[in-house]
């Protein structure tokens, strides 16, 4: 038996609809045999590996406002689905107000790949390892979705259903992701544990985001999101609650890290064992909290 390590793409038809409605209708009419295409950096891998067998790839990069990257102090940040990760990282608005997002993008693959890879593709692929998803979750991302019935919004926090599974229905196209204005002085950290410093998929990924918040007993709000340690990207509400109600100090961070460890349910795979992942979640969450605390000026 011979193994083809470099398979070419199987046959399919490339479709480029003129409008969003045309695209949604086409996708709905061909449910199960068509999928939206952005950068293709997940799709082409999965087609070559024989996991995807779609007859149609429907290019949605050029539709409506999918190319838009805009910021408004009152409304926040809007990233069109077609905006690639290098563009996000290079945006002065993102660097100034959503530095965590740029940091998360920077951890993805390589420069060349990020010329094509998009945040919305990362989200819709719904891998628990998706490196930009944690940042999008803690930043309060909301997806604009166009389906056969028109537009609606889907908060990211309730978007994921399992590995590769989301609330999207046939015909649904995510056109953009929006983030509310970032609280003044907010800071975050993404720690990606891979097999090497750059470019590998994460064994564990820990995102922490925090800011001063007079509405909480501790005076701060902290959130954490975990990658590669559960069937979906995971927010940790227990950590947020603990750090809202306890004075912020080293012991509070230690306990919060234990809560993050308790919240996750990793599996063994080629990149790491479940036991190792659990241990790393605790260590890296504590580290990320301390780093964020420093960035907050403490």
């Amino acid at each position: 038996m011979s193994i083809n390590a470099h398979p070419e793409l199987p046959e399919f038809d490339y479709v480029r609809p003129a409008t969003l409605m045309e695209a949604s209708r086409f996708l709905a009419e061909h449910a199960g045999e068509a999928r939206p295409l952005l950068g293709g950096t997940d799709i082409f891998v999965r087609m070559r590996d024989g996991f995807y067998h779609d007859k149609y790839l429907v290019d949605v990069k050029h539709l409506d406002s999918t190319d838009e990257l805009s910021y408004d102090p009152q409304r926040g940040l809007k990233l069109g689905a077609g905006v690639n990760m290098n563009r996000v990282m290079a945006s002065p608005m993102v660097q100034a107000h959503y530095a965590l997002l740029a940091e998360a993008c920077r951890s993805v693959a390589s420069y060349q790949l990020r010329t094509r890879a998009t945040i919305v593709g990362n989200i819709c692929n719904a891998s628990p390892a998706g490196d930009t998803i944690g940042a999008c979750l803690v930043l309060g991302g909301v997806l604009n979705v166009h389906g056969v019935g028109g537009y609606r919004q889907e908060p990211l926090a309730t978007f994921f259903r399992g590995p590769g599974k989301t609330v999207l229905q046939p015909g649904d196209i995510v056109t953009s992701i929006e983030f509310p204005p970032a609280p003044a002085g907010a800071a975050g950290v993404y720690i990606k544990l891979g097999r090497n410093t750059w470019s590998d998929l994460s064994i564990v990924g820990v995102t922490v985001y925090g800011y001063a918040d007079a509405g909480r007993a501790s005076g701060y709000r902290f959130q954490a999101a975990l990658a590669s340690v559960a069937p979906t990207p995971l927010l940790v509400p227990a950590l947020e609650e603990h750090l809202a109600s306890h004075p912020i100090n080293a012991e509070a961070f230690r306990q919060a890290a234990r809560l993050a460890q308790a919240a996750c349910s990793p599996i063994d795979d080629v990149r790491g064992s479940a036991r190792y992942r659990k241990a790393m979640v605790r260590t890296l969450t504590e580290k990320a909290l301390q780093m964020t605390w420093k960035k907050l000026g403490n």
Partner: protein
Amino acid sequence: MANHRITLKINGEYEQVDVPSQMTLLQMLRDKLAFTGTKNGCNAGECGACTVLLNGEPVNSCMILAVECQGAEIVTVEGLAQDGVLDPVQQAIIDHGGVQCGFCTPGVLISARALINRNPHPTPDEISEALVGNLCRCTGYLRIVDAIQDAAARQESLAARL
């Protein structure tokens, strides 16, 4: 399955090509147009041997459909030299001995050209980061990084003389 007729500019020349949907930019360049400088190392976005410029930005040509390049401008390694004069990154990589088997070199050169275009004074760390997607199994990268830093300096002194 449908063929698509696309028009694009490759190394400054217009080309009209008929491509099936599933043909990658890499396949079109190598198999249809004989730009064999662009290499196929992994066909999976990992190695960077297939790197070309698409509208000025480096991309893995194995991860893009040819049909997605309708109207685009592509530069391959064959398009780096101008009027028979090597690009500073090409000359520097020769001078520094940054080529061994040479398989990674076309992709490295394209990544280096793109880096210097967006950042005329890259530090060694910035060069290493820009080469994360260009695997080289021979040189150990040091000579490549030196060459790119030197190329940036040479380009600057060239520009100063013009």
